[in-house]
């Protein structure tokens, strides 16, 4: 199976990258942009067909390594 993990900064955490991107887009003439946040997307292939087991496994990976839960939230999507 394949898992996608979306890791985003918690809402109240400063996102310097998002801030810089937003400014640059405005300088390039794009309008109406109000909020830019940059996060991570991690894709993992895992040798296991049991969807709920995979989900739990990935959730564990997020807690242990992939996300820094001090400042980040994560969301898991299982496909295939």
């Amino acid at each position, binding site marked *: 199976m394949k898992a996608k993990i979306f890791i985003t900064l918690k809402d109240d955490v400063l996102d*310097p*990258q998002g801030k*810089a*991107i937003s400014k*640059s887009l405005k*300088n390039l003439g794009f309008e109406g942009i109000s909020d830019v946040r*940059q996060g991570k997307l991690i894709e993992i292939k895992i040798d296991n067909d049991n969807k709920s087991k995979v989900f739990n496994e990935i959730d564990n990976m997020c807690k242990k390594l992939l996300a820094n839960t001090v400042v980040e939230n994560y969301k898991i999507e299982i496909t295939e």
Partner: protein
Amino acid sequence: MKVSLIIFPGSNCDNDAKIALEKLIKAKVNMVWHKETSLPKTDLIVLPGGFSYGDYLRPGSIASKSHILFDIIKNGKKGTPILGICNGFQILTEAKLLPGTLTRNIQLKFICENTYLRVVNNDTIFSSRYNNNEIINIPIAHHDGNYFAPDHTINELEDSNRIIFKYCDKDGFVTKTTNPNGSINNIAGIVNDSKNILGMMPHPERAYDPLTKNIDGTKVFTSLLDIIL
């Protein structure tokens, strides 16, 4: 020689480059702020190292959209020499003045150390005072110096002699173990097809002063003296 040294928010080797240019080639250096729309009269454009826009998004990406880049691109296409060092190299690839891109070091760490380089081609305005295959020592200091380009681009660079510096060991051997960051073919510096634009990750402006025990970067600058004889 009149030099335009471009400053972006977050540039931090601009002063080092200025001092090197003044000391080594008696350049008259104009510090040009990124918001300017045109360059003063100039014999050489230098894009210095640093962390323009904090290296956010991708190193060099945001700086490559600055106002001043329009005029830099215009000048570069006309043949004005451009030297991009470290972040300057990253900006040049993001601006498509040089092919390929600089990705995260393979070890995923910032790395600051002296590296040996082999001068692969001395037939450019930036390397003419070196001997071909000369082995020199110049420091690197970067997080994203891992040069990548598709195979056909690499082949083209190799075939047209546009790779100027390659990372090597102290005896000049270009091998995997002497590659500090994962760059394809140990590429440390390349030129565009008309050879007036050089991008390099190592910092020649940190290697000219005997006090810092390294002078091997000097000739990147002094070679340029020959262009306006």
